């Protein structure tokens, strides 16, 4: 039965890839989308089956790498991640056809659809791969297809540059992951994930290599720079899929190797994960706060969320190593739930950002504003997703954050080591700081884009997007509400999967009571207000603007909203604000006031650009050897020969 579904899924993928190639330009979009949705439903079925009972699918082929054929394992962890992939794919597939219609002059829809299908297939492959060879092949397919998608709008120069940055980042990631896998193979003489059990001092270096490789792919600090570069360039559905799911494949691998299979047991790796996670979360959120580009802002917020999830995995490992298996498990659930909730709200946010981008033709938040009136549906979805992003109860983001913070608190209570206890408490404080910052970000994002008055003509002309796009935006938003409300059930379910022997209750918050009270209290108040408004009609007057007429330019912009906090963290941003007064009486009656702010992406300007310059210089030196002079080549060869001879003589 499973095999039939799998074959069916592969057939739909192949069809979905072929249709846009065979159909005339831009005609196969809807068919392809429908086929992708069908295959996603199939993926969900497989996911359900895998959660129910794990099974292995081995493909016997003549040609295989390293003597190992492709093999796929389906178990509960795969099931969970496959479900996430399927949900996001459905939303994206619903959304993409109309979105691509807007881009038809700039992009080639055929390449887009083929790459999209390959990306989805490759992600499923990465998630289900049973051995390292299959994994790396799928990992590469995923990297290449997603790079193709980033290049969709390749006629623009910036897109090409950012696409190359992304490609470089994925190369580096693959290098480290493959290096770690080779190392592990050398230790265990096996490519099978299940056969790997490396502990002790042997485990340290492969673990660190693997962590670095995965962290590059996940977009952790200091390797995060491909995310804010690639996302603004890629089309919105691609950003949604990449940030919602593709980044999660790295998280999946972390959970798979370290938490579930215990393939590598290395205490160092867990501390490295926690530290990476904490810095990433903070770094991501403070840069989110300063961004003006709609999608770059969301890309930085993905950096933050990935940091929080990585941190959860690390703390879970530490707790397990300390012998506090219960707490380790609850933090593992936090990480898994975090993957789901982040995939849901981030796809909504990216898809909504894409809708704003195409209807208002503008992605500078300081030129938008007041879109809530013109796009009420998009605003509602964004608001829901934003509230989930800020971890407000009772949404999915809150469930994640609660599990994580409560786990840390329990760790602090249960451990007997003062330093571990203090560490857990500091973690709590740090995550609270990140939470507060992410809420400031969210108020800024929604407030500036959707509320108030339109700041430009383009924003005034924006209209609500088409029905299929709206459904695509709404699906993940609705699901994130549902996941938040059903958090107790889902948590218990996950606990049962992780540890079938004792599925103890981890969700100890009385969600039911709270939700009932919330709806009852809010409902009564809302009804009272509605009754009052009915009895006495609302009086609508112009807003008070100190006597003058109100104009859109009086509003707080994203830039000015960010100012107090940007000053506070000025050292990190290298934030600078310059105010100039002009006019005959500049002090009292200036004719013209100019405010200019300046901030730097410190990591890029301080580390990467100098680093690149050094590499460039080394390259220049090497290039001198290849000057085209035959004598230079001969001398080089001769010198190499001599060196080799000398080396051979020495080692003899």
């Amino acid at each position, binding site marked *: 039965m499973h095999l039939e579904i799998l074959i069916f899924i592969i057939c739909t993928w192949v069809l979905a890839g072929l249709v846009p190639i065979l159909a005339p330009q831009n005609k196969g979009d809807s068919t392809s989308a429908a086929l992708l949705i069908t295959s996603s439903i199939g993926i969900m079925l497989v996911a359900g089956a895998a959660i129910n009972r794990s099974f292995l699918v081995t493909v016997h082929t003549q040609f295989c790498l390293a003597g190992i054929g492709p093999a796929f394992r389906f178990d509960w962890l795969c099931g969970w991640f496959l479900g996430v992939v399927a949900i996001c794919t459905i939303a994206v597939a619903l959304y993409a056809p109309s979105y691509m219609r807007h881009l038809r002059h700039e992009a080639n829809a055929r390449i887009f659809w083929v790459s999209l299908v390959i990306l989805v297939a490759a992600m499923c492959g990465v998630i289900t791969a049973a051995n390292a060879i299959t994994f790396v092949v799928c990992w590469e397919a995923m990297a290449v297809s997603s790079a193709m998608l980033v290049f969709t709008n390749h006629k623009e120069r910036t897109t090409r540059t950012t696409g190359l940055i992304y490609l470089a980042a994925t190369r580096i990631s693959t290098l480290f992951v493959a290096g770690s896998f080779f190392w592990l193979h050398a230790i265990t003489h096996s490519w099978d994930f299940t056969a790997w059990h490396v502990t002790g001092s042997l485990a340290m270096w492969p673990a660190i290599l693997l962590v670095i490789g995965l962290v590059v792919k996940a977009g952790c600090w200091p390797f995060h720079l491909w995310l804010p570069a690639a996302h603004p360039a890629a089309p919105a559905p691609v950003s949604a899929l990449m940030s919602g799911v593709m980044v999660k494949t790295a998280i999946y691998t972390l959970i798979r190797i370290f938490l579930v299979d215990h393939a590598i047991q290395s205490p160092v790796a867990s501390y490295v994960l926690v530290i990476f996670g904490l810095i990433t979360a903070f770094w991501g959120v403070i840069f989110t706060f300063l961004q003006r580009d709609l999608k770059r802002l969301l890309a930085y917020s993905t950096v933050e969320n990935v940091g929080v999830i990585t941190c959860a995995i690390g703390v879970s490992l530490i707790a397990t190593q300390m012998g506090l298996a219960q707490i380790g498990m609850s933090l593992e659930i936090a990480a898994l739930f975090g993957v789901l909730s982040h995939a849901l709200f981030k796809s909504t946010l990216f898809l909504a950002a894409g809708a704003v981008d195409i209807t208002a033709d503008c992605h500078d938040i300081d030129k938008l504003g007041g879109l809530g009136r013109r796009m009420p549906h998009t605003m509602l979805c964004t608001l829901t997703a934003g509230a989930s992003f800020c971890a407000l109860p009772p949404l999915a983001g809150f469930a994640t954050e609660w599990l994580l913070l409560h786990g840390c608190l329990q760790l602090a209570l249960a451990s007997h080591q003062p330093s571990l206890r203090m560490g857990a408490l500091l973690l709590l404080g740090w995550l609270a700081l990140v939470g507060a910052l992410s809420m400031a970000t969210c108020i800024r994002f929604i407030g500036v884009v959707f*509320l108030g008055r339109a700041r430009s003509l383009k924003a005034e002309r924006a209209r609500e997007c088409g029905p299929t796009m709206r459904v695509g935006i709404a699906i993940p938003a609705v699901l994130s509400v549902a996941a938040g409300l059903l958090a107790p059930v889902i948590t218990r379910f996950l606990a049962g999967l992780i540890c079938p022997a004792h599925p103890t209750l981890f969700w100890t918050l*009385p969600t039911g009571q709270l939700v009932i009270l919330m709806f009852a209290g809010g409902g009564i108040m809302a009804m009272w207000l509605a009754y009052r408004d009915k009895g006495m009609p609302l009086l609508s007057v112009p807003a008070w603007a100190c006597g003058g007429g109100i104009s859109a330019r009086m509003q707080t912009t994203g830039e000015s909203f960010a100012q107090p906090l940007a000053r506070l963290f000025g050292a990190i941003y290298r934030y600078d604000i310059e105010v100039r007064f002009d006019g005959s009486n500049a002090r009292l009656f200036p004719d013209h006031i100019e405010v200019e702010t300046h901030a730097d992406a410190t990591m890029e300007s301080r580390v990467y650009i100098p680093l690149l310059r050094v590499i460039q210089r080394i390259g220049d030196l090497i290039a001198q050897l290849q000057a085209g002079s035959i004598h230079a080549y001969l001398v080089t060869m001769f010198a190499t020969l001599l060196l080799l001879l000398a080396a051979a003589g020495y080692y003899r």
Partner: protein
Amino acid sequence: MSRISLVGLAVTVLESIIMPFLLVGILRSCRSRLQKRRGPRVVQPLYDFLRLARKQTVLSDETGPIFKNAPVVSLTAYGLVALVVPWAGLPAPISADLILFVFLLAAARMATGLAAMDTSTAFGGMGASRESALSIFVEPTLVLALSAVAIYQGSPWLNALIATPVSTGGSAYVLPLAVAAIWICAAAETARMPIEDPVTHLELTMIHEAQLLEYSGPRLALMEYQAGLKLTVYYGLIAQMLINEIVIKTPITRWAATTTIMFCLVVLAAIIDTVLVRLHWRKLPDLLAFGLAFSLVACLLAALKG
């Protein structure tokens, strides 16, 4: 549900309706007396509420659905806060931990912040921006201080605050330091003196008030009541920590002690309002960092207990 908890629930609900008005009234009249003015009556806030609730709503043209519904959302969040925190000296009707408490506060903050951005005035946006800047300090301080107390009490649940401490090996400074930290948070959150001038009419110096400038009628009434409720919950929480080791005999004595201390705290707040001057906005981090440092040291002392 046993009889005691039923009575507790009733008392909590009743108190959360009466106390906000009473505390705000006492605060205002005390402050006026200290400044040698006669001041309003103690029950004036209640009359204000009733008056506002009967009035017609005046809305600005610029506002949308978020502005209209934000008071409901934020007051609901505060209502839940009042039900999960044992601020009245009685076990809270719903058992929850400090994380839910902090995130409910965040929900209310987000609702008011977005409503302020929805007014499309410069004041609203400035208020929202400043409030979120303050929350960067308030939220970690609150989490750290409350978790220090949780470690000290040996339980993550807020209701453990009013129970006998499980382990008494901890340092005696944990609770005072946590109280100091939460007091600073409370000052920042309830617009009290060194942080914000509660009686100012200069929009440029406001933080919380600036976000509410456009509200009127029943919605303003809800927002004002919410401000009172915030004050009540914070002071009740502080009172619990102050009497933690002194009065734990019976629920009645505990309740009485809590109420008395809450009144004392309100008088203290009035004195502080009179004595201190408002700090410059850019100097606030200097003060709020003290809250953070106090809570960090409290955490350290709590973590060292074993």
